[in-house]
């Protein structure tokens, strides 16, 4: 949390006319997300044509990226960049938890690790969907955000490992039985497909397209959100920070117009590419 507060203090100058803004994501976190979605779109755009190589659009896409041989090159390039980002993230977590002895990495309100509250929130959320109860009071990370995080975490381990096993098959054959070389393609493509279908439909809607955030939640691009958004979305965190007197430490300057516009262009482009890939994927089945 220390770096979050430091970053907030750095960018905060005055209260904006429109009201106060708070920092939710640090620059490093936003950069991680940007790297993640850029390489993921690249991996999906080059992976799907291989998965559905018999379809018309697969060949068009393959030639679109600069020829048949290029598609595997781009796939591997994105994979290497994503792997590096993943390793940097894991190293970061490790350093914060075990070297700097930072509290609250593996438990507590700011942790990504699932807690009993998440189970209660999920059930409470469903009760609210059905009109059977009040809306749960979410803390810093809601259960679906944690699911997104761990789905990507698990996905990167599984897809990454199976991908490298195919890339360096003769090397991996020293440790893996022959049938595993068959299995890695099944695992890689099914898990990849799950990631693509999940991100381009569920994540897009849950995070960006549902009425409360429509058409796009800018917080992951700008890092900042308004006080009203903060209060409505994560009342528990807001109240906790207010009670602890730490709210002011998170104050930040409202995002500039150029920052918002740049974020919109990047964000909408990413969502558009994702939705196009989703349609192409579904067209292979229906």
């Amino acid at each position, binding site marked *: 949390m220390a770096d979050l507060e430091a970053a907030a203090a750095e960018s905060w100058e005055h209260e904006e006319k429109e009201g106060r803004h708070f920092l939710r994501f640090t620059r490093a976190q936003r950069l991680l997300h940007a790297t993640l979605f850029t390489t993921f779109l690249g991996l999906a755009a080059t992976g799907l*044509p*291989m*998965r559905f*190589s*018999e379809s018309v659009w*697969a*060949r068009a896409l*393959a*030639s679109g990226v600069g*020829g*048949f*041989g290029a*598609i*595997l090159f781009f796939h591997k390039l994105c994979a290497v960049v994503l792997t590096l980002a993943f390793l940097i993230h894991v190293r970061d977590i490790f350093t914060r938890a075990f070297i700097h002895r930072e509290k609250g990495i593996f438990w507590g309100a700011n942790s990504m690790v699932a807690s009993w509250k998440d189970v209660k929130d999920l059930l409470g*959320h*469903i009760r*609210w*969907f*059905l*009109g059977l109860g009040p809306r749960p009071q979410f803390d810093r990370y809601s259960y*679906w955000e944690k699911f997104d995080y761990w*789905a990507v975490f698990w996905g990167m381990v599984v897809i990454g490992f199976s991908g490298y096993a*195919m890339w360096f*098959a*003769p*090397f991996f*054959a*020293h440790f*893996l*039985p*022959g*049938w*595993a*070389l*068959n*299995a890695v*393609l*099944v*695992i890689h493509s*099914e*898990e990849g*497909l*799950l990631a693509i*279908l*999940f991100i381009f*439909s*569920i994540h897009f*809607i*849950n995070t960006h397209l*549902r*009425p*409360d955030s429509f058409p796009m939640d800018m917080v992951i691009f700008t890092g900042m959100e308004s006080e009203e958004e903060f209060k409505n979305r994560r009342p528990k965190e807001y109240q906790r920070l207010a009670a602890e007197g730490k709210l002011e430490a998170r104050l930040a300057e409202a995002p500039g117009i150029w920052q918002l516009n740049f974020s919109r262009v990047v964000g909408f482009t990413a969502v558009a590419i994702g939705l196009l890939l989703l349609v192409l994927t579904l067209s292979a089945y229906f």
Partner: protein
Amino acid sequence: MKTASSIALALGALLAIAAPRAVIAQTDCLACHGDMTLQDASGHSVGVAAHTFAASLHGSLQCTACHTTIKEYPHPDKVTPVECQNCHADQASGLAGSVHAKASEHPCISCHGNAHAIFPKDDPRSAVYPLNIPRTCGHCHGDAALAKKYGLTNVYSLYMDSIHGFALSKGGLLVAANCQSCHGSHHILSHTNPLSSTYKANIPKTCGKCHAGITADYELGVHGKAVAAGNLKAPVCTDCHTAHAILQPTEAAFRMQSTPICGSCHKDKLSTYRDTFHSQLGGLGGYVQTARCWDCHVAHEILPASDPRSPVNQANLVKTCGRCHPGANLSFVQYQPHANAHDRKLNPALYFIRLFMNLLLIGTLTFFVIHTILWLIRSRYTQIKKRSADGGKNG
């Protein structure tokens, strides 16, 4: 045969000298017919280019040797057509039994061209010189209207774009296969006739006239043996390479088209191949050097995996896979290029992994689709309710 007919002609000429009244010398005929503008009653040109004729294969013959019904001058307006078979009996009998027997035009000059300008077939001026044959046959077989009328494919353009056509038209190779190399010349039979050189069972022999080494390999393989044993379901050369549009086998287009051809018989092998990375990447384009059927099974001397000489025999796999995968070891070659993830008995590990992955995919998506739909409905409902509570301003 040629010598015999030459002797007969020479004897005829001698007899003609013995009876001077019947003689009409070339010069006598050319006195009129040497005029290239000369026409008969129906307007057909009856002029003869004297120099060309003199240089042609028949240049030493008297006109009456072929125009046998003309005995004296002036001759009747109507003369009977020349009967080439008087000398070329073998060719004529071959033609009589062929697909061209019913050709309404004079069958000989349809191919051999101008009767007064016939040259030996090794003379570039000849219509049947190897480099000229495709164009000669193409007069009819490249004619879309004729092709439609007789239900033929327009083979001329297919041939000209093929490796044989390029070798002939671009390379000027006399040894490049032209039409008659495969179909013969006079006694051309339909490919449905068991005596035809293009009848399925005879194809390996026909192609083997040039491709002797490949044919020898083919005859040792399972397909060659099956065809030799009378199983005409097994493929011959043309089933994979096609008859006229033959491509260079290393070409991307051929690499793309051949796998489905193998798969038209080996359906289960194609469908399991389709599930592998070899096919998934290879399906995107022929330039990608991923394994196609014959990269592992070889193309011509195809042997069952149980045969120790087969490249897909267990003992040879390290070498075969190692051609593309340097460092392939015994464990690596246990990879199954035709594994079936839907077959529980054959590939149990793969079957259950696929099942688990599918359940994970379907389970996760089903839960979250329901979750998201409920959430969307509830959010929208709350939004509308809130707006109407505001006085319906933003409703």
